């Protein structure tokens, strides 16, 4: 199977382990990820709050490249995904000559793509190491499923796809009420005080629920949650040390890929102790 792949800037930088684990899982499942040639910024960072036309043009160029490739586009970053979907919507509903144009491909978040029944079956078949005993909460953040009118997600208040996937991998998935709360990702540079409050709440609630790790599908959520814990600990006078993992890392681990250990080294909060205690690495 071949699909177009839009890594976005994060996966080429801060979220390298997300990119690597994604490509690894793709290989294991027999999926060829064809990176969009000459892709550009998705417009999520600053363009969309400063200039709507610019933001849409940035997406439009990416979409045009994808259209040429003619394959479904898989987007691992939630922010990029949101922009792509917004672009798609604009293309369908917008004004002018382009109005009503339907794309010849689908835009899928990486999570959406991997929970396709066929791939799930494959994952089930290839599973070598069930994540038994690992207590996780799944965190989808704001942009992966919302706004529903853009993403088309059915369960936008209580998404379940990642929960189901991790359940299939054998992890103990704990239901909680904060799956789609904001982590403050867009305010990391401007209002760190708010970000600290929001992330601390997420950690508190995850701990309350009895989770040992938060699993994410967005590089911004990951870096924000992962890197923020030291600060919060200092402020709260209480040690926060909860690994924040990409769901692709856990798939790779469960499918027994030897590289899995390497990815974890890039995390601020080292997950190896936790995973070792469960006999997973």
């Amino acid at each position, binding site marked *: 199977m071949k699909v177009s792949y839009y890594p976005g800037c994060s996966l080429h930088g801060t979220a390298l382990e997300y990119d690597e684990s994604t490509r690894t899982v793709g290989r294991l499942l027999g999926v060829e990820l064809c990176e969009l040639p000459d892709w550009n910024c998705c417009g999520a960072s600053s363009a969309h709050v400063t200039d709507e036309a610019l933001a849409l043009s940035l997406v439009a160029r990416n979409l045009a490249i994808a259209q040429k490739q003619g394959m479904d586009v898989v987007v691992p970053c939630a922010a990029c995904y949101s922009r792509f979907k917004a672009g798609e919507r604009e293309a369908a509903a917008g004004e002018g000559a382009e109005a009503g144009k339907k794309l010849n491909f689908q835009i899928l978040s990486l999570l959406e793509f991997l929970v396709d029944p066929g791939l799930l079956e494959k994952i089930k078949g290839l599973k070598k190491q069930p994540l038994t005993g690992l207590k996780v909460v799944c965190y989808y953040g704001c942009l992966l499923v919302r706004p529903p009118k853009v993403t088309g997600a059915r*369960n*936008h*208040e*209580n998404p*379940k796809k990642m929960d189901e996937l991790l359940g299939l991998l054998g992890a103990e998935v*704990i*239901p*909680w*009420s*904060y799956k789609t709360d904001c982590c403050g990702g867009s305010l990391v540079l401007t209002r760190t005080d708010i970000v600290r409050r929001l992330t601390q709440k997420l950690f508190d609630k995850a701990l*309350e*629920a*009895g989770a040992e790790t938060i699993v994410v599908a967005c590089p911004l959520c990951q870096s924000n949650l992962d890197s923020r814990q030291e600060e919060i600990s200092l402020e709260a006078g209480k040690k926060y040390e909860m690994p924040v993992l990409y769901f692709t890392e856990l798939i790779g681990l469960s499918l027994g890929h030897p590289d899995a250990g390497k990815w974890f080294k890039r995390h601020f909060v080292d997950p190896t102790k936790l995973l070792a205690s469960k006999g997973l690495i």
Partner: protein
Amino acid sequence: MEKERERQQEKIEKTGAVMIVGGGVGGMQAALDLANSGFKVYLVEESTAIGGRMAQLDKTFPTNDCSMCTISPKLVETGRHLNIQLMMDSEVMKVDGPAGNFTVTVRHKPRYIDISKCTGCSECAQVCPIITPGRFDEGMAQQRAAYKLYPQAVPNAYAIEKRGIPPCRDACPTGQRAQGYIALIREGRYEDAMRVIKEDNPFPGICGRICNHRCEDECNRNLVDQPLSIANLKRFVTDQVYKQPYIPPDPLPYQFGEKVAIIGAGPCGLTAAKDLRKVGYPVTIFEALPIAGGMLRVGVPDYRLPPLIVDREVREIIDLGIDLRLNTPVSNLDDIMKEGFKAVLIAVGAHEGRKLPIPGTDLPEVLINTQFLRDVSLLSLGMHKDPAGKEIRDPKADIQNRHVLVLGGGNVAIDCARTAVRLGAAKVDMACLESREKMPAHPDEVKEAEEEGITVYSSRSFKRILDKDRHVAGVEAVKVTFMEFDQDGRLNLETEEGSEHVLPCEVVIFAIGQRAGLAFIPESAGVGVTRMSTIAVNPNTFAATRPGVFAAGDVTTGTSFVVEAVASGHKSAASIHRYLRGEELEPVPLPELPVVKLTKEELQERVASGDVRVTPRVRIEPRPVSQRTSSFAEVSPGYTEEEAKAEAARCLACGICSECLCCYYKCGLGAIHHDMVETQEEVQVGSIILSPGYEVYNARLSQEYGLGRYPNVLNALQFERILSASGPTMGHVQRPSDSQLPRKIAFLQCVGSRDQDHPYCSAVCCMYATKEAIIAKEHEKEIQPTIFFIDIRAYGKGFDAYYERAKKEYGVRYVRCAISRVVEDPQTKNLWITYIDDAGEIKEEEFDLVVLSVGMVPSASTRELAKNVGIELDAYGFAKTDSLTPLATSRPGVYACGVFQGPKDIPETVAQASGAAAAASEILSEVRGTMVARKEYPEQKDVREEEPRIGVFVCRCGNNIGGVVNVPGVKDYAASLGNVVFADENLYTCSQDTQEKIKKAIEEHKLNRVIVASCSPRTHEPLFQETIREAGLNRYLFEMANIRDQCSWVHMHEKEEATSKARDLVRMAVANANLISPLEELTKGVIKRGLVIGGGLSGMTAALGLAEQGFEAVLVEKESELGGNLRHLKTTLDGKNIPKYLEELKAKVTKHPRIQVFSNAVITDFSGYVGNYKTNLMVGPRMFTREVEHGVTIVATGGEELNPKEYLYGEDQRVLTQLELEGFLHGDGKRVQELKEIVMIQCVGSRNEERPYCSRVCCAEAVKNALTIKSLNPRARVTILYRDMRMYSMLEEDYARARKAGVRFLRYEEERKPEVAQKDGKLEVTVYNPVLRENLSYHPDLLVLSAATIPADTAELASMLKVPRNADGFFLEAHMKLRPVDFASEGIYLCGVAHSPKMIDESLSQAAAAVSRACTILAKDQIQVGGVVSVVDPEKCAACLTCVRVCPYNVPVINKDGVAEIEAAMCHGCGICASECPGKAIKLQHFTDEQVMAKCDVIIEVLSEAFRGERV
């Protein structure tokens, strides 16, 4: 055109019947009104019982009356009305024809219980093993598949819920009801489970062990975890039952003479034999072997199927009376035919094994599967000869300590291999053509074989068997790369070149398939044989090519599974039966239910809601290999009882009813018919009323609130059930997660209302949340309810007072904040809510329970209904109507009422239903009375001079009474009592045939008093009274003893005492019966004329309604002109022209030949009673007196707008009321253009201490005027200062429209009302804004006051009519919920603003309702009065006025003789006067002091007998 249409309309022959769709409170009200005013009614209800939503409610606001107690009499009345035909479980499919004469096609869904036979005894439900979440309790309590919707349900009959055929049953060739016996295992009812299995399969023990259980492959549980272990559960049942010693069945009687021969005593032959024997044929089985059972006995090794099981199951069939001839091979078919058999079934199976045509198969160590296994079996039985009479060579001798290779990959190959292991082979291997994945053997079997040391070589083809000195020396094989059987069964094979190799072995067993031995069928027999060596048969009938010869099982199909053989046995037997009876041989196809394939989503939802738990199947560990291989003992130990019950509990009950037939066998009335099918019927009616009601919004769609995800979030209807004493927690307030008392409860308003998908207000939620908060608090003082709301819409009569009471007396906390989400604490399951408090602070608060005030939405089935009937719906699915014709739908002759017309509460639904009844009958007035049944009775016998001859009928009520009380004992006891000349007992005294029995007994034994000792007179007294009346006895010669509800039910575990109490109750009834006497009912005529008081909208509409119904109307108006308040209104919110409407209405009224209008008229005197009133009037400026005689009275005195005393009204001419503004806006358009700023103040004179009620109409009036201003002058700024915007129901849309148009809405607080002053010649309005927390000022050009609506001054009228008013001066109806337009005094009705402030459409509906109610009287020629009424003994009366004061209906008067007089026509028979009268001058007939004393005497006697020790 118009005239042409009219003429056509006239030509239509009208039908005097009305169909009502929907049996809720609205449907029932309409039905009763119509049936009581001379029309036949068909009441179509899709569920199994009438009652609708109201039956589910606990209490009703604002009176906190019990909902069920209120509705129950209506249910009973509707259920037994002679002219209401209930069509339960039914839907309207199509409506043809014109108004006046519709042809309606109605579909009746199967109920599986015959309503006419069912007595509601509940025994079917008691034996039903299937549990489902009960709908009535909103999924919170369990219900059986055989169920009655709720205890008081009407019709009092059970129903069976079927969803379809469970996939397990569908997958099984025999149609085994697996779901049924699994449920019975869960309940520990193993004998019943065995019976269920045997309905379809006579070999439970066998199939429980060796079936290939396709049922498990199809199990819906596959979607969530693992399928049920159905085969093991089946085996478990047999393990349990076969523990008991075998009791042979009684041989069956013969019904037919034709002898049937069956060749072969295998599973197919035995099944057919059993079926045919059960039908009543003499059956003979011919079996070649020395033992019966076929392959089961000699083909399946003992370690898989213990021989004892086969023997037992075979014996059970043979013992039915079947002639089994063992050792009798049939050598020639013709011999059998000659013996006189009329039909022959060939079921010889496939017992001949095959070898491959390769070199070396003639070596002595080459064995064949079937022979090998058969020899092992026969030898173990001590038999040494095979069927051909040859000595059997012990295979053990060939195998022991040798290397065995089995060729083949099927189950038989595995059997051979594992048998070889057990016979002591040195090593056993298997080799087969198929790949490992495609091996036909069951994977579990392969796994167990491997565990036992067997090696499987898959994908091999065999070249030859190596011969070394005439002994087997191995098999030469090649690797197979591809294999496939084509459509004709030919093998396509590709092998790998050069892959030849030798599989070492010393013994070879061929296990590559079996076929039938057909030597006994020579070509001359006329029975065709196929190329595959099977008998050719028609697959539907199993008939072979020779008439009378049938064949089934493996002999027709080749080797197959046991279930297949059983299935073909059943089918061939049925076919033989048809053949012998000379019927069409092809079976008639039966309509089948759909197969229930659940979706993953549905199951996940059930998992999420806790209904299904994800649990893997309960595993059975096979015995350890070491124990297995050394003997032929059974490998699997089977389930223990505990394991089996746990496994059985995993069943999803996909089909709901499993057709286990427990109910069928239990029902003593033959009321259960599992083969019922859907039927259609065409019904002629003149008009149609639709009242299908609503669903509550599915709040799971609003995921942010967590319904279905968080256990402690409920919807309001669920909470209603929790509050109800008959609900899942028996009225104890508990939260679902831990059954603890929730101390803090949050109610979230507007869930599924006032949102983007539902831009309307559901009209009732504010009040029901308030009610639920109050009732919860009444249940448990500790509960602290908080209601989160947007506006409190307490707009109805008495609602605001109720809301204030909730706040002040009950301490219900109200927080004005819409809640965006609920989060759950994972440990405590408590719920957190974030809101903004009064001070503007963000607060987080924890609650124990959250109740979602869900809105009303039309259901999918109502959309379907609308489509079928052909009427238009609005955007949300409510019926499309408009404000001036609120009852009419888009199709003439079809009317709508209740929530279907728009969200509304119970009284408005009831009023609208009566209104719809009036509209539906108005077009049929000329055919009134043409279709109603009138019952003719025989002449009443005069028994007054006779000695009492009492008959007592004691009821068993199935087991309900009979299982507790010793009914024969009670009967004998009754017979021993004085004056009892006859006593009898019945299984069900209320059943139809028993009524005939009672009538016959009355005749034969000359009974003149009848007692039934059974259930409650509340439900059953009228039935028995009817029965004795039909036998010529006066109804009042009946007496009842309640030995069920008040005896056997409450003393279920004290049988002795219950019997003793039942005797005492009967003795009391007899004591009473001795004293009862026939009561006479008087007949009075009805004056067919109505008096309507008040000439406004309601009064004119009512008068016109009466006239159109064919009755005379007298309309009395105090002013000189008709029209009332309508004269001041110009438009409606939906843009209708009111002045035009008013002119047309006035013209219709004044010109109508049956209406007489008196204007400038006052009522001076009022007297009489229902049907016969007399009213004196003074009319006109010259005050002429007039006397009017009329049968009914309608009060429509209306109200008016208050003249405000505040906000500078009357002092500054820029201050207007809304009505004045409306006049202004429709006056000089120029002045409107000049307006820049308009401020409106709501609640002026309403919702204050002086007038604590909401005037209801002012919010809509303000919005209407604001919109008018905006449309005329869009730049004008309009600001409405309000407390709550009460834009209820569809008005919410107009509220949104106004906001969109730029009208500004600002809230003010009751404590800080706006202040108005004149400053520099300008008006200044200052108001504190609670959101901004500061004062705002306006300088409007116009200040408009939304002044209160006040009732007309009716003090004098009320006292003349003797009807009550409430503290606010509005008239008070008989019952706030169910009698909204009736007064307690019969024959007097009210409507319009006289009742309470209301909108135009509401007044119109209510006026029509009053007409409808009035017609129930006017339609009668006579009314019956008397019976159970109070009578005064004038000799004893001291005219003390006690009775006058205590009567709730104001009936007693002191007459001209100076003594009390009670008009029988007006008396309700409540007995209050009789009990209060100090002089004992008043007697309530049928409940006289003597009667009551006689009953009390019995109690005293009983007590003294007990005291003397004469009783147990």
